[in-house]
């Protein structure tokens, strides 16, 4: 039970808004040390457990370096932004009269879910798609309709654009048989002595995918009304900044 303190540290740290990097490191070391606590373990034993935990954490850190490969896209995206990519994306959308932020994201949800279901998960993503294209397009569409956006409306649109990418990915990818989660399920069940086909598992992700499209789709269709409401809230942040 003592090891649950590690989870408590994480939750308390996030709530207290302490820098998460510090919180995670302390939680990891605390968990490793507390797991070693028991009858007959002295201070030296705990110290050894602490060093072991640092080594284990370091090893895992090294094994997980692959997260950084996605940052390789930043120079390309930055270069294109410098050449006016966001402006072009915005211009393009403002020419389509029927475009609204909500409808545009609805189309993106459909495309993201469908391509993820075919295993093409790397077609979307926040650095590649949302920041350079989807968010500026949605902002552009809202601007054509409502005029210059208030901060509240702008940040709500950006949050929704990022969320729509995640939702499309999560409730699409499981339909593809070779995705990590399906492999994990099949492997786990096999170890428990139950044989299932990957295709059979991925088929049962379809009902949830359909419901997810309907639920988030309805929210996106109602989203433009939300944006309109946010337009009535004047920017206060700028005044605060100016007075500082």
């Amino acid at each position, binding site marked *: 039970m003592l*090891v*649950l303190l*590690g989870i408590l540290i994480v939750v308390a740290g*996030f709530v207290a808004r302490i820098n998460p*990097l510090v919180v*995670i490191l302390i939680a990891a070391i605390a*968990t490793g040390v507390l*797991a070693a606590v028991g009858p007959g373990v002295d201070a030296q034993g705990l110290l050894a457990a602490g060093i072991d935990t*640092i*080594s284990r*954490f*370091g*090893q895992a*850190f*090294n*094994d997980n370096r*692959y997260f*950084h*490969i996605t*940052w*390789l*896209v*930043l*120079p*390309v*995206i*930055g*270069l*294109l*932004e*410098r*050449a*006016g990519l966001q*402006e*072009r994306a915005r211009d393009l959308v403002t020419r389509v009269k029927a475009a609204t932020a909500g409808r545009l994201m609805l189309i993106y949800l459909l495309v993201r879910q469908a391509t993820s279901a075919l295993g*093409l998960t*790397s077609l979307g*993503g*926040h*650095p590649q798609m949302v*920041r350079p294209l989807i968010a500026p397009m949605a902002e552009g569409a809202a601007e054509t309709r409502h005029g210059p956006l208030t901060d509240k409306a702008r*940040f709500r649109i950006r*949050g929704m654009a990022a*969320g729509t990418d995640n939702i499309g990915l*999560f*409730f699409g990818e*499981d339909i593809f048989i070779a995705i990590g*989660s399906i492999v*994990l*399920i099949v492997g*786990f*069940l096999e170890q428990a002595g139950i044989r299932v086909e990957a295709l*059979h*598992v991925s088929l049962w*992700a379809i009902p*949830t995918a359909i419901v*997810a499209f309907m*639920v*988030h789709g309805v929210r996106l269709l109602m989203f433009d009304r939300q944006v309109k409401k946010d337009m009535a809230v004047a920017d206060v*942040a700028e005044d605060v900044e100016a007075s500082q």
Partner: protein
Amino acid sequence: MITLEHAYIATGLMFAAFSILSLRDPLNPTRFRSASFWGLIAVSLLFGSWLGGFGNGLLVITLVVIGATGKLGVGKPATTSPAQRQVSAARWKNALFVPALMVPLVAVGGTLLAKHTPAGAWLISPVQTTLISLGLGCVVALVAAMVWFRPPVMAPVQEGRRLMDSIGWAALLPQMLASLGAVFLAADVGQVVGDLIARVIPMTSAFLAVFAYCAGMALFTIIMGNAFAAFPVMTAAIGLPIVVHQFGGDPAIVCAIGMLAGFCGTLMTPMAANFNVVPANLLELPDRNSPLNGVIRAQIPTAAIMLVANMLLMYFLAFRY
């Protein structure tokens, strides 16, 4: 053959360049701190395999101290003004989209080629093929953009640094959380949580069992930030022994929908940093450091409804088919 190690070298060199340019940027208020932060990430990418577990552990501790004891400043790399961008956008028109789309196309194309053709298998390593192809796509697109738009030679590194500074220490968060997961796994935290949930919710009917399994998947994913970490724990504690064996649920349906219930948790937690925190930084949301930032708040209604939907779907499908 291109392997993961090559992708690490390319990424490491990029971070080394960010570090050097940050050091030489007098407009960055914390240029020494920024330069050492990006520099140490470069060291980890280039030489991490030779440092050993404890050496990497010390590297992480140093990174955390640098990244957390003070603010990481945002540099001021030379870039174009909004007016210049309007002019440039009008000049290049849709050509601007081509390099942006080359990245995912090469990533997907490379993955497919490596899996299905001998030439592709010879060119790209079978380990982490998609990530290697993604890195390859970035390099190809960068070369294309340089040839096409002819920006200053240093522009890609400067522009990359501009975006990297806006992400800041959050760039390290996904990797840190994954490492915390490894420590939790070694300390058997999952088993303890699984037993606790099994004890709190009395599973006297099929519906209560389904409820406990799905809620447990979502809750544990919120804590761990990763449904993959929650799945083996919750399925071993509740899914298999109770929903499948005791009440006779179909294992494929129970596991498929259980995993998706976990994904609902991923949508609601700052612990899933690469999905929920990194984009908040990338999109420069003002509340990016809050535990419930704008991305998570946008997702919570959909996630909550989908969690209930998954419980109902599992209850109505798993015992029928």
